[in-house]
């Protein structure tokens, strides 16, 4: 009789622990999804900002057409990206393009002094640091989720219920990353 009770208790405990593990997996997956939507929101804010920025720079430096085209092209490619990896690559190009745009702006003192440009510059810096933080949060949560999916014992549950590891969002850090010097451009 006691043996029955003990085995029942063990089964009950295992069941409870499995429920706990399953719920952890679900909440982590939701956090990853939430993290991704945060990144998406911030990226979208940057897309919305770019036409304004380009127009403002154009007002003072209309002949720098090549840079404007480069940025516009990178922007539309980033908007069209579908997978996490593609998105990351497109964002890198867009960030590089924006850097060039800002470097061009350095050559026009009147532009740099204009109130509109300064406000846009603060908005761009703010948006880029928000992207960096959203990416940091997303990658942290992806790491936690992937560890749970691969580690014993939650890997059994993950397999049974179809939890798959997520892809990290690897873009170069827009604030503290290496500065690219474009020698082809005076």
């Amino acid at each position, binding site marked *: 009789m006691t043996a029955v009770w003990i085995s029942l208790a063990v089964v009950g405990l295992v069941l409870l622990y499995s429920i706990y593990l399953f719920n952890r997996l679900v909440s982590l997956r939701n*956090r990853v999804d*939430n*993290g991704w939507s*945060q990144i998406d929101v*911030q990226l979208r804010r940057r897309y919305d900002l770019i036409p304004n920025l380009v127009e403002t720079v154009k007002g003072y430096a209309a002949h720098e057409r090549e840079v404007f085209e480069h940025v516009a092209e990178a922007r539309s490619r980033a908007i069209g990206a579908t997978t996490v990896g593609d998105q990351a690559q497109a964002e890198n190009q867009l960030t590089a393009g924006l850097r060039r745009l800002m470097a061009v702006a350095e050559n026009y003192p009147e532009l740099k002094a204009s109130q509109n440009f300064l*406000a846009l510059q*603060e*908005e761009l*810096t*703010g*948006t880029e*640091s*928000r992207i*960096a*933080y*959203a990416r*940091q*949060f997303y990658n942290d*949560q992806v790491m936690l989720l992937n560890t749970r999916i691969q580690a014993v014992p939650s890997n059994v549950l993950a397999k049974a219920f179809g939890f798959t590891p997520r892809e990290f969002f690897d873009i170069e850090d827009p604030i*503290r990353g290496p500065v690219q010097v474009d020698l082809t451009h005076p």
Partner: protein
Amino acid sequence: MYEQIASNKRKSVVLVLGAILLLGAVGYAIGLITQQGPAWLIFGLAIAVAMSAGSYFYGDRIVLASTRARAVTPEQEPRLHNIVEGLAIAAGIPKPRVYVVPEQAPNAYATGRDPEHSSIAVTQGLLDAMNRVELEGVVAHEMSHILDRDMLVGTIVATLVGAVVLISEFFMRALWWGGVGGRRGNDRGGGPAEAVLFAVGLVLLILAPIVGQVVRFAMSRQREYLADAQGAMLTRYPPGLTAALKKIAAASSIPMRSANNATAHLWLNQPSRIQGERMGPLERLFSTHPPIEDRIRRLEEM
């Protein structure tokens, strides 16, 4: 971090229970002295419960009002708003409300009851003195206080201590003026009303320093080091906060008009009330904050 949250929630409950017990005891004592029975006890308990509920639900507004903080819009302070929003994303919590305190001393604090109801206030002096990276370091430190629920304990302490101080001052003044008036009136000797005032005043007078010690105990100084470290983890850039703390240390002689004992523990750095005030060793022992030099050293060792 989860233990930190649990311990802070426990502390908040203990503080509230302590306040209820204290005022209940005072009410009971008055009841005994005046022989009016449990009416005073119930009165004391009612005040305590109202005070606790008030400090939980309205504590943040009381603290913000007492420091004369005003809400700012993203249009007025784009840089500050951008930084707060970014760090809220990094911490995975909703964006706290943003306030500016019209003070020249660079300082900041966080208040509220949970991440959904939280506010970050910085002084005008901080906005003027810090560059973007430094401001980010300071905001990340305050964000950690929100994450750890330090601001819940801090806000409850600030409002409960503030209320106790207010009540004891009220009674002491009533006692003083009542006593003088009584003597002038000649025939109004030691009636029950004066006995009550005297008893309450005496109890609160004895309790005031003890309450102060409790505050210091509740707001363990360790939490500041912890928030520094956690803030550095949010920005992934300890030198930002280090540089900010150095600037704050250099400006620590600038006095703050709205500084008082009830809210001192909330601030990023202990506010000074008098121009050029320097802390002696004894004050350092009883201060609510660790010495800023120690915090800078620990951050540099990271």
